[in-house]
């Protein structure tokens, strides 16, 4: 997570989840846009990062986000078959599933989610964010310990 994104995170006593969402440029980012212009409400717990394709999201990015204190990571892409790059999202699915297995071994299961959200599914985007926020609230804060630099 960059310093800019980290600076935006509210620091107060009432803990709110802090979710990083990787949205693909062609479907999910447009879906988030639609949620915005249609004024569908969703909790302000999510920071959206635009990537060109969901398969651009390397497992290393997800691990780094969790290491730096994100409570949850959402990867959103086009529905299977709709990928702008033909089969990028199939690769993403393999990668994310493998990363989920690695996270389960570390005791961080449930903190990574893969969703397919198309450009016309603004409502679905807001529902996914709401649902994921509830889930992260149940799981609680990220157990990663701070270390002195």
């Amino acid at each position, binding site marked *: 997570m960059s310093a800019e994104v980290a600076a935006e995170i509210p620091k107060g006593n009432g803990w709110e989840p802090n979710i990083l969402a990787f949205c693909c440029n062609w479907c999910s980012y447009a879906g988030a846009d639609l949620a915005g212009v249609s004024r569908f409400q969703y909790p302000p717990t999510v920071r959206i990062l635009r990537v060109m394709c969901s398969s651009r999201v390397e497992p290393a990015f997800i691990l780094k986000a969790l290491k730096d204190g994100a409570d949850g990571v959402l990867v959103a892409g086009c529905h299977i078959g709709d990928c702008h790059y033909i089969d990028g999202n199939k690769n993403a699915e393999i990668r994310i599933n*493998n990363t989920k297995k690695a996270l389960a071994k*570390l*005791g961080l299961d449930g903190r990574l989610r893969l969703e397919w959200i198309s450009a016309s599914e603004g409502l679905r985007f807001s529902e996914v964010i709401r649902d994921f926020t509830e889930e992260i609230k149940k799981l609680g804060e990220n157990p990663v310990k701070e270390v002195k630099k």
Partner: protein
Amino acid sequence: MLNSKAQSCYQCGKCTSICPMRRVSKTSPRNSIYNSNIYGLETKDIWTCLTCGLCPQECPQQVDFLSFIKQEREGKTPLDIAHLGVFTELAELSSRLNGNTKMEKTDSKYGFFPGCVDSLSLFLHDVKTDFGEITTSSLKLLDKIGIKPRMVQMKCCGHDMLWQGKKDVFDRLKNDNTKYLKESGIDTLITSCAECYRTLSKDYDLGIKVVHISELMDKLGLKINSEVTYHDPCRLGRHMGVYDAPRRALTANGAKLKEMEHSKENALCCGVSSFMNCNEQTKALRIARMDEAAATGAKTLITTCSKCLAHFNCLKNEKDTAKKYDLDVVDLTVFLARQLEAGK
């Protein structure tokens, strides 16, 4: 600096003449010591070093180049980490979590540590190698010789972190693992990975016996009837001095061992260590080693390090290579377990 005896270097250049990286790049161990001793400068060469351990064998002044590199790298940013640093991130993340402290409730005095085969098979799925088979095979073979070990579920041993200069992460992992092993009451730790073996026996102070699985495999009583060749991983060979145990494990079970041109102390490196510097230059080293293996005429290349296995298989399965290798690259335990299954 003082532990590595680098100050006694008199710049003869024997290290540079033997350096495998020197064959393919401008890397110079002599120069990196010179720059560090005289000017206190950090050179690129400390990151391109493979830490293969060839040069300390040649040094007339007995400079410990490996500790020199380890000290020079400490706290600095690595030049290039392969696979976008996914294994580094995973180790850093696990070093900052409480981790899995479950322990099998048996009174076996033996522990078995599979190393990072799990994460290798998760994140290197395009190498087309079943890394998990190393663990299942090891357990099968141990069962055959009558050892029923407990599965040790500790964190990553931290080998890569140590050699990538992330000493703070390594120290955290080391503390957690040492505590875990002390509480478990194991007195012999068996590992199937050459890197874990090196790290746990040389960089940890565990006070328990650490054994590489190849040291136990000579009494299997198999009747293998094929020609094989053996690649010495740097961590097991030059770092730890274990040359004969894996060879005995093969010949005592009937396999015909054909040595490569460079073997034992002079074995060539697979080209990548601690997931650093996977590039065209180190690929040339890998090709050189595969050529030597193919020249022996054996159809199976056996190694004891999961990283060597990954790198050779990666080269073998590359789509647009000029050469196709008709070699099976397998881990020692996998090879023996397959023979055990076939003999039943």
